Structure formats: structure tokens, C-alpha cells
């Protein structure tokens, strides 16, 4: 019997081949890798909980409004008699305070309008003066299709609904997410050009109008659905998608804002996502609580989950850590070394690639003649021309208007959060006035020069500030100017990004 030795080269080749096959197989299952250490550490700082609010409405999603939640429910669940003995009723939007989550504590959102629209499809402006929402309208062929509407909230009451003009064509327009400064809106739509399913689009406000929507591109959109967008106060973009690599079903992803655009989508890790469907993620303006929906099986009623800051997890030495007061600041750490748009970053904190540049809106932008008539336009980012031919052709011809700043004539006061590169940076502003009503002083005159103001809501009133300075000294110098101009009660207030920083130690830096 002739015995032949297998050459070691063959053995090594086989081993390498098997290893490669194993790796390819692992990656082709669309599963995320185990959580990196950073994510696990951050997740200790957060607490997940279920919401004990027995919502029996047509949808189990909620949205934040003031100090509470908005949910849909049938009027029969809000009667003294138990619902088993009541038939019918109507679907209505209800408000319940976060501190007293129960049906008994709820009240109609608006006394003069049932407002029976899905809360996950609502987005309130920061001053709660306007709500954008998704409402089904009937087309000429009697089919229903979602459109985005706008409604002013006047003294807590609903007013007339107005459909946004860009959503007038027959496509679906749903889930508007308005930025905190009311300047941009991200929403889901199946309008063209599309990557397939519902894509995320962006529109920018120009005065009282909106620009034509622009597709957020293939860095963010996939052939699956991308919907339920949400913009936090740092302008990070959250959304649900079935097309990116995840844990199964719909997962929540975040595109971190880098000052000029959004990075690639990053999975919110297994802390949030599961093989079920996670949808409708949003963060309360106080930045201490987030909420989202989870349905483990299609067609089953969703479970409402909250994420709270775990203040006990921060050691006493970390009391000045702004992350202890802001979920938004923990998110980048949580996803920092996790999945990013099809690949795993080798090292934590590696800057993510930019998926969408707001200043140079690239990719799948909408070819609209009205946009091309706009004076200021930005050309495409040619590096991103990798989408389908149809989309690319449209994109190549597309230019996108830049919003002309309303404060162009006003002396430069950088108060647009969308332009702030670091949402966590410390800055100082001069607070000159307070008001119980929003937008009372959009600009002020200090020593003969006009300045745009920045307004924030704090302890029951709208606080008006002027200027933004990196040091206390510069802010104090400006404060003296304000006092000389009649603002006698001016003082310097510290901020982390746009959030008031009340820690006095920041003034000693």
C-alpha cells in the first residue's frame, strides 16, 4: 500500500479556506457581533423599564409632549364604568404626565379635537406651539395615503390642520421629525428617487415654507424600510430600519451628528435591539428618558419600553459628567465601537464616515425644478455616486438650496445648534430676559448693534440669551454691554451645547 503524505501547504490552504468560509458565513447572517466593552459599560449607566400604561388604542406607540406622554386610546377606556360594559367610543389622543402614568391620570390632548393620529407620527416643536403629524387622506381613487400635516397649538387647543405642500403628490409621507430649532424635518416617504421601501428624506425650512425633500442617501437608506425618524437636541438622527445589519426585524439605529452632517447608521446595540421589531425611538426634551416600542412577533401588540439614566451608576466623582444628565451624550459611547453600516469598527471612538452632509446635500436628492430655481445651491458629492443608475442620474442633475439665514443682517451670533460641531462643548451666554411666552424677542439691540437671541425653556419660563462665548471672561464683558443697553438683570449662564449647565464649577475653569 502506497502511503502518500499530504503536503503541509495543502493543509494550511485548507485551514485558511475553512476559516474564510467561516468568517463569510458569520457575516452573511446579518447578525451583530457581541457588544464591545464600551457599550457594556455605558449600558450600566442606563436602566430599561416597561411602561405600566395599559394602552388599548389602535397603536401602542407614544410620543413625548411637555412633561408627559401622548398616546391613543378609545374614549370608552376613560369612563367611570369599566370598558367591558361599554361599546364603541372614538379613538382620541390622550396626554398623561410622566410622574403619574395611568389611564386615570390621563386627559384628552386637545379639548377641541380628538386628534386620532399615531403618536409616533407626531413631532412637536420645542416650544410646543406647532405639531407636525401624519394623517391619512383619501386620494381620488379612494385609496388612503399618509401625508404630513402641520397644526398650530394655540393656548393648548388644536387649530386648523394644514398639509405640507411638499407632501401633496400621491406618495406616502409619514413620521415627521422636527429638529429642536425647527429648521429641518426628517420624515419617511416612498417618493422617488428611492432606495426601496420607505426612505428617509429631509426638508429644510425657508421662512414659512419647506424646501423640496431630499433623500438621505444610500448611506442611511436601504432597500428595506427606514422610518420613525427622531432628532435629539444634538441633532443625532435615530430611526428604525429593517435593511441594515442588525439583530433581526426592525432595529433602532443612530446617525451621529458631526456638525455638518450625519455619520453612518450605527445599531443601538443589543441593549435596545432584539430579534423582534424595535420602533419609534424618541428622547424627552429633558434628555433623561427615552421611549421606544418593541414587538417580538409581527402582528402582536407592542411593548412600550423606557430608558432612564441610572444616576446611581455614576460615582460621586462623576457628578460633573454631563452624561449623567443627558442620554443623548451616552448614545455615542454606547454605539461608538459597535456596528456601523455594514462593518465593525476596529477601535472605539473611531470617527464614523459621514453618510449625509447637510451643508452639501449629496446623493439621492429629489430632482425638482423649483429647487433648481433657488439662488444658493450646493453641488453633489461625487464620491457618493454609487447608487442605482436611475437614482444616480437624478442625483447628478440635482442641486439643493441652502437655507438663507434669517439672521443674515444681524451681527454674527452662532446660535444654530445645527452648526455646532460638539454638542457637549461648554459655552457661556448672557441671559437678559425671561418670558412666559416663546419667541418674544427674536433679536435685541445692544449698544446700537442687533443680535439674534437664543431662547431656552427652563423652570417654567422661556429664557432669552444673547451671544455665545467660550470663556466666562468674554461673556462677562458682553454682559456689561447688555447692562449698559438697559438689560439691567443680565447675567452669564453656562451651557453644554444648548442645554443649561447648572454646575457652578464650570465658572471656575
Amino acid at each position, binding site marked *: 500500500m502506497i502511503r502518500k503524505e499530504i503536503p503541509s501547504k495543502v493543509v494550511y490552504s485548507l485551514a485558511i479556506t475553512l476559516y474564510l468560509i467561516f468568517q463569510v458565513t458569520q457575516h452573511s447572517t446579518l447578525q451583530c457581533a457581541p457588544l464591545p466593552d464600551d457599550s457594556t459599560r455605558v449600558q450600566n449607566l442606563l436602566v430599561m423599564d416597561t411602561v405600566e400604561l395599559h394602552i388599548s388604542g389602535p397603536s401602542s406607540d407614544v410620543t413625548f409632549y411637555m412633561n408627559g406622554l401622548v398616546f391613543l386610546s378609545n374614549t370608552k377606556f376613560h369612563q*367611570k*364604568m*369599566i370598558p*367591558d*360594559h*361599554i361599546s*364603541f*367610543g372614538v379613538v382620541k389622543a390622550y396626554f398623561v404626565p410622566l410622574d403619574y402614568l395611568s389611564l386615570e391620570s390621563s386627559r384628552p390632548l386637545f379639548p377641541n379635537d*380628538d386628534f386620532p393620529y399615531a403618536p409616533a407620527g407626531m413631532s412637536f416643536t420645542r416650544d410646543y406651539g406647532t405639531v407636525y403629524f401624519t394623517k391619512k387622506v383619501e386620494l381620488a381613487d379612494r385609496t388612503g395615503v399618509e401625508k404630513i400635516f402641520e397644526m398650530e397649538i394655540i393656548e393648548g387647543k388644536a387649530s386648523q390642520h394644514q398639509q405640507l405642500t411638499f407632501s401633496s403628490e400621491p406618495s406616502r409621507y409619514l413620521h415627521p421629525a422636527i429638529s429642536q430649532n425647527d429648521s429641518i424635518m426628517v420624515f419617511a416617504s416612498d417618493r422617488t428617487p428611492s432606495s426601496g421601501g420607505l426612505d428617509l428624506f429631509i426638508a429644510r425650512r425657508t421662512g414659512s415654507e419647506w424646501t423640496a425633500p431630499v433623500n438621505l442617501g444610500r448611506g442611511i437608506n436601504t432597500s428595506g424600510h427606514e422610518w420613525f425618524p427622531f432628532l435629539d437636541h444634538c441633532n443625532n438622527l435615530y430611526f428604525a430600519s429593517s435593511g441594515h445589519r442588525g439583530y433581526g426585524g426592525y432595529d433602532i439605529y443612530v446617525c451621529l451628528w458631526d456638525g455638518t452632517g450625519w455619520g453612518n447608521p450605527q445599531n443601538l446595540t443589543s441593549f435596545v435591539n432584539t430579534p423582534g421589531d424595535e420602533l419609534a425611538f424618541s428622547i424627552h426634551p429633558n434628555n433623561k428618558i427615552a421611549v421606544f416600542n418593541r414587538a417580538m412577533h409581527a*402582528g402582536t401588540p407592542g411593548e412600550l419600553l423606557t430608558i432612564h439614566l441610572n444616576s446611581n451608576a455614576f460615582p460621586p466623582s462623576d457628578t460633573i459628567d454631563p452624561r449623567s444628565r443627558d442620554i443623548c451624550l451616552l448614545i455615542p459611547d454606547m454605539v461608538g465601537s459597535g456596528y456601523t453600516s455594514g462593518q465593525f469598527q476596529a477601535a472605539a471612538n473611531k470617527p464614523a464616515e459621514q453618510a449625509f452632509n447637510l451643508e452639501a446635500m449629496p446623493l439621492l436628492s429629489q430632482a425638482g425644478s423649483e429647487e433648481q430655481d433657488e439662488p444658493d445651491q450646493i453641488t453633489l458629492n461625487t464620491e457618493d455616486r454609487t447608487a442605482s443608475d436611475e437614482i444616480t442620474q437624478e442625483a447628478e442633475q440635482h442641486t439643493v438650496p441652502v437655507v438663507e439665514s434669517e439672521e443674515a443682517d444681524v451681527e454674527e451670533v452662532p446660535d444654530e445648534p445645527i452648526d455646532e460641531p460638539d454638542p457637549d462643548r461648554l459655552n457661556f451666554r448672557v441671559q437678559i430676559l425671561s418670558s412666559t411666552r416663546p419667541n418674544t424677542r427674536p433679536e435685541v439691540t445692544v449698544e446700537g448693534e442687533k443680535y439674534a437671541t437664543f431662547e431656552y425653556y427652563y423652570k417654567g419660563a422661556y429664557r432669552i440669551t444673547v451671544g455665545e462665548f467660550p470663556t466666562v471672561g468674554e461673556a462677562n464683558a458682553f454682559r456689561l454691554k447688555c447692562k449698559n443697553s438697559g438689560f439691567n438683570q443680565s447675567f452669564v449662564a453656562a451651557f453644554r451645547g444648548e442645554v443649561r449647565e447648572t454646575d457652578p464649577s464650570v465658572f471656575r475653569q
Partner: protein
Amino acid sequence: MQRLSVKWRFTVMVTGLMFCWNLNAQEVPSRPLSIPVYHPMVLIPGYAGSKDYTKFGLTSRIYKVPDNQIISFHQRMYGSDGGFSNFGIGGYIFQEQFDNYWNTGLAAIGAYHFPIDKARLHNIATGLTLKGILNVPKKQSEIPDDSLNSSFNPNMDAGIYYYGPTVFAGISVTTLFGTRLDDGRTVHDAAYIPREYHFYGGYKFLLSRKNAIVLEPSLLISVNDSTFSELHRHVTPYLKLYLQNFYIGTYVKSKDIFALFFQYQFPRFYTGVFLEFPRVGFLNEDNIIFEVSFGVNLGKGDQKFLQFRHW
């Protein structure tokens, strides 16, 4: 002394009537006795579609007394938008056995429901029933066949029904045209069904929200043209006590008769038992009227069979 509210006075009155009633026992009626309990739309057409689910029910008298069955259903129609419309429909088929006749009937009910508040919790419904009753002589009757004729009697019921979270009340006229009295038939014939007038109303008291306990006193008044002048003698007070998935009830229509009825809702179906027996001689099984009821409550979409109680 503080005056009792209207609803408590109503309850006291119903309860008092139950204990003080002093009427003679009536004849065995031509329908299942439990119709007001399990098939109210037979008496009040406007009831059809007053629930947000589809209800199918079968009731049969099964013990010692003339055989009666009724199958009924009713539901609220859906609109083009998938929600509930204002139209309710219903129907029932029944069979009754008399000494010399079988009565078989078929009825179709249509109702229109007007919400009277924005929250659509309070509604008024008008209902109309078109029905036909076929009287067929029994073959084995001791009376010679040639003295009994088959007949078909088309007829109509009409009524108005109000229902809200706690109060319900309806009035109606059944067998609007009466039974024809031609062919030698008289009002004394077993197959004769007169025009009848009904009032049915009640109030639900929430005793415990946590334990889902509700007390429901109600009144049923049924008279016909010849008994209209004796209205007070035809008032039947009912009392129901709901305990989550279960209720127990009773009514008093005479001092000589005692009645009990129950219903329990299992997931996907419900069942009920109705008993009426004389106070004296209740051990004599010939005197007991025993009816059973079985049914399903259907929902829409994923809830084909309702998993939870709905009263």
C-alpha cells in the same frame, strides 16, 4: 334626610318590586323565557348592532316543557374606512312547540345608530324587524287534522333603543300587524300572537372597578292590546350582578315563580343557564323550565374570537 338620586330610587323600586310582586303565574309563553336575557333584540330591534362585536347565540329549552329554540346574531356593520358604521344588522330563527302547532319563524333586523355625543358613547338606535312565522299543525295531534290549517304570517317589529355607558332603555312594538284572525282563528288559539308593546331599561352601578363588579337592575314591561290597561301587572323587574367574566341574575314576575340565570364567558365562547321554577313544588321536575344558551362573540382582524369579556 338626603334625597336619593334618581338611579338609586330606580334600584330601590326594582328591588322592591322583586320582593313585593303579587301577580298570578302566567301561562307558559310561546318563546324561550330567557329571550330578554340572551336575545334582547327579539324584543327591541334597535338593540341590533349596539355592541362593538358580532354576537352569535343559541338558546334551547331542553327539559320537560314545550321545546323551543332560537338562534340569533347581531353586529354593527363596518364602514369603508374599516371603522364601525352607523348600521346594525341582526336576525334570528326560532322554533316553538305548542299543543297543536309548530311555529317556525325567521326574522331580519336592521338598525340605524345615531351617536348623540362626540365621544360616541351615547347612542340612540332605531330598529326594524321583518319577520315571518309559519304555523304548522302537529301530525300527532289529537285534534283532527282537517280542523287545523298551516298558515304563514309576515309581520314587523319596530323600536327605539338608547344605550350609554351606564344607562340603557328601549321601547318597541312587536308583531305590529298582529296575527290575522281569519280562517276561524281566534285570540284563544295557541298560534295567535298579538301585537305587543315593550319597554326595557336599566342602569349599571359600578360597585368595584378593580374587581369588575357591576350591579344592573332593570325593568321589562310587556303588554298587548288587551292587557294595556293592566300595565302595572306586566312589569318584570330584573337584577343582574356581573362579576368579571360571570353574571348571575334573577327576575320576579310573580310571587309563585322564582328564576335564576347565569352566564359565563370563556375565552372564545360563552354559555348560560336559565332556570324558572315555582316556589311551591319546585322539586317537581315537571314544573321546571330549564334553558341553556351557548354563543360566541366575534371580533375583527386578529381577534376573530374575542378573548376577553364583553357585556
